[in-house]
C-alpha cells in the first residue's frame, strides 16, 4: 500500500540523471566505431526531430523581418490571447498547487486503506486524450449537458467562456504537482513532523517550517511543469473555447486560427513566444533537477 503501485509516468516524475558514467572495466567498453555511429545516430535523430522544428518556429516567425514579427505580436488579438493564457494559468496552477499539497500531505504522511486507488485516480488525467478532457466538460455543462439547462436558467455560462478554459486546463494539469510531491514527501518520512509536534509546534507551523522546506525544490519543479502545460494546452481548451477571438482564445488557439487563415508569420510569431516559454521551462527544469539531484545525493547514501 504505497505510491509505488501507481504507474510512474516519466513526464513529470522521472528525473533525467546525467553525469559521468561509472568507471568500469574493459568489458563495458564499446568499440570506437560503434560509439561514433551511435552518437551520430542519436544526434542526427535529435537534430532532425527536435532541433529542426524548434529552429523552424523562429525562422518562420522572422520570415518577413523583425518589424513584421513585432507588429504580429503587438496585434490586439494576440495581446488578448497572451493575457487570457496568463489568466488561465494564474488560476489553474494555484488551484492544483493547493490540491497537490493537500493530497501529498494526506497520502504521504498517513497510512490508510484505498491509498493506491486514490493515487490511480489522481493519475487518471494523464491517460485521457486532451480532446476527451475537453469533451467531458461539454457533456457536463454544455447546452445539451447534464447541468446545461439548469445553468442556462440561472444565466450561468461555462462552456465557451473563460470558466470552461480554466476547468479544462485544471483537468489536464491536475496530477503534475501532486505527482511530484507524493514520492518526495514519502521519502522524507514522518519523523521530523512528529518531532516538531512533540516539541509543541502547531499543525500549520509544522507544515510550513518542517515539511515545506524539505520539498521546496520538488514543489517548484511540479509548478514549473504544471505551468508549462497549462499555458501550452491545446486540445482540451480547443473543445471548450468556442474560438471567440479576443475573448476565449488562448495563445495556442490563436496560433491555430492564424495558421488556418494562412497568416503564417503571425502564427509563428505567437508560436515563438510559446517556444521561448518551452525553452525557459527546459532550462529551469535542468537547474532544478541538478539541485534536487545534488540534495538527494547529499541526503542519500
Amino acid at each position, binding site marked *: 500500500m504505497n505510491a509505488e503501485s501507481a504507474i510512474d509516468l*516519466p513526464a513529470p516524475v522521472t528525473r533525467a540523471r546525467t553525469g559521468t558514467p561509472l568507471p*568500469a572495466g574493459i568489458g563495458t567498453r564499446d568499440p570506437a566505431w560503434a560509439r561514433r555511429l551511435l552518437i551520430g545516430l542519436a544526434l542526427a535523430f535529435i537534430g532532425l526531430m527536435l532541433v529542426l522544428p524548434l529552429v523552424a518556429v523562429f525562422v518562420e516567425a522572422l520570415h518577413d523581418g523583425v518589424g513584421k514579427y513585432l507588429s504580429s505580436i503587438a496585434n490586439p488579438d494576440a495581446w488578448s490571447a497572451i493575457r487570457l493564457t496568463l489568466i488561465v494559468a494564474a488560476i489553474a496552477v494555484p488551484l492544483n498547487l493547493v490540491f497537490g499539497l493537500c493530497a501529498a500531505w494526506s497520502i504521504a504522511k498517513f497510512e490508510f486503506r484505498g491509498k493506491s486507488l486514490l493515487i490511480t485516480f489522481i493519475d487518471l488525467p494523464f491517460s485521457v486524450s486532451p480532446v*476527451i478532457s475537453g469533451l467531458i466538460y461539454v457533456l457536463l455543462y454544455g447546452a445539451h449537458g447534464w447541468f446545461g439547462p439548469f445553468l442556462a436558467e440561472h444565466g450561468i455560462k461555462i462552456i465557451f467562456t473563460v470558466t470552461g478554459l480554466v476547468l479544462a486546463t485544471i483537468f489536464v494539469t491536475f496530477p503534475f504537482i501532486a505527482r511530484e510531491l507524493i514520492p518526495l514527501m514519502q521519502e522524507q518520512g514522518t519523523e521530523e*513532523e512528529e518531532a516538531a509536534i512533540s516539541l509543541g509546534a502547531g499543525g500549520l507551523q509544522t507544515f510550513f517550517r518542517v515539511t515545506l522546506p524539505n520539498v521546496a525544490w520538488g514543489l517548484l519543479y511540479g509548478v514549473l511543469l504544471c505551468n508549462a502545460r497549462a499555458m*501550452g494546452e491545446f486540445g482540451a481548451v480547443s473543445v471548450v473555447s468556442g474560438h471567440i477571438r479576443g475573448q476565449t482564445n488562448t495563445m495556442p488557439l490563436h496560433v491555430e486560427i492564424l495558421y488556418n487563415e494562412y497568416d503564417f508569420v503571425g502564427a509563428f510569431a505567437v508560436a515563438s513566444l*510559446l517556444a521561448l516559454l518551452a525553452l525557459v521551462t527546459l532550462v529551469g527544469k535542468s537547474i532544478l533537477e541538478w539541485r534536487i539531484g545534488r540534495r538527494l545525493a547529499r541526503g542519500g547514501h
Partner: protein
Amino acid sequence: MTAAAYTWKRPSVLPGFGLTLGYSLVYLSIIVLLPLAALLLRPAELGLDGFWKAVTAPRVIASLKLSFGASAIAALINCAFGLIVAWVLARYQFPLKRVVDALVDLPFALPTAVAGIALTSLYAPNGWIGSLLAPLGIKVAFTPLGIVIALIFIGLPFVVRTVQPVLLDLDREVEDAAASLGATRWQNFRLVILPSIFPALLTGLALAFARAVGEYGSVIFIAGNMPMKSEIAPLLIVTKLEQYDYAGAAAIAVVMLIASFLMLLVINLLQRWSRRHEERGA
C-alpha cells in the same frame, strides 16, 4: 499490519488528515471523477444498438484504425531511436551532452500546436525537408506518414526517460563478467544488457503508444484530416461535437478511454514485472 487491517487508517499524531484528505477527495470528484462519469454514462442514451452502430460506422473504424496503427508504428520507431539516445546519454561523453539531455524533454514542454505547425512547415512540399523528399515522390505532410512523424515527436521522451535511468543503474560489473567469460560486445548486449532493460523498454513503448493514441494538437495540422484517410479519432470526436452529436462523440471517447485504461493496466503490470526483475539477484 494486522492492526491496520481492521481500521482503515493507522493512528498518527500528525494533524490535518481529515481536512486535507477531505479536500482532496472533493476536488478530485468535481474535477475528474464526476466529468468522467458523465462521459461514461452519456452513450447510454444511444442504447446498446445505437452505441454499437456509432462506433462501428466505417468512418469511425477508419479513424480508430489510423490512430492506433500510426501510434504503434511511431512507438516502435521511438523504441529503436529512444534506446539509442538513452544509451548514448547514459554511456558516452560528448560535447553538448547536457544540452542534448535537456532537449529530450522538448516535446513535453513545447505546446503541441506549436509542434504541429512547425512540423507541417518542415514537411510541407515546399518546406525544408518536404522539398527534399518531393522529388523522390515521398509525400509526408497531409498523409498518414505525417501523422507518424508528429507522433514520433511527442512520444520520444517517454522511451528515453524510462530506459535511461535503468541503463544508469545497471551493474557494469555484470558486463565485465560476461566479457571475461568470452562474450563479444554484441553477445554482451544481446544476452546480458538487453534482457535487463527489456521491461523498461516495453514500458516506454507502452507509454509512448498511449500518449500517441490520444494526441491531437501536433497531428491535426500535418494530417490533412481527410475522412477515411487521414482523420484521427480525436479529431472525429471534435467534428461530431461541432455537429452537436454529443452521444456519438462520447461513444468514440468511451472506446478510446477503455483502450487507454487497458494500456494503463498493461503499463502497471509491466512496471510491477520490471520491479520484480530488478529485485532479483543483487
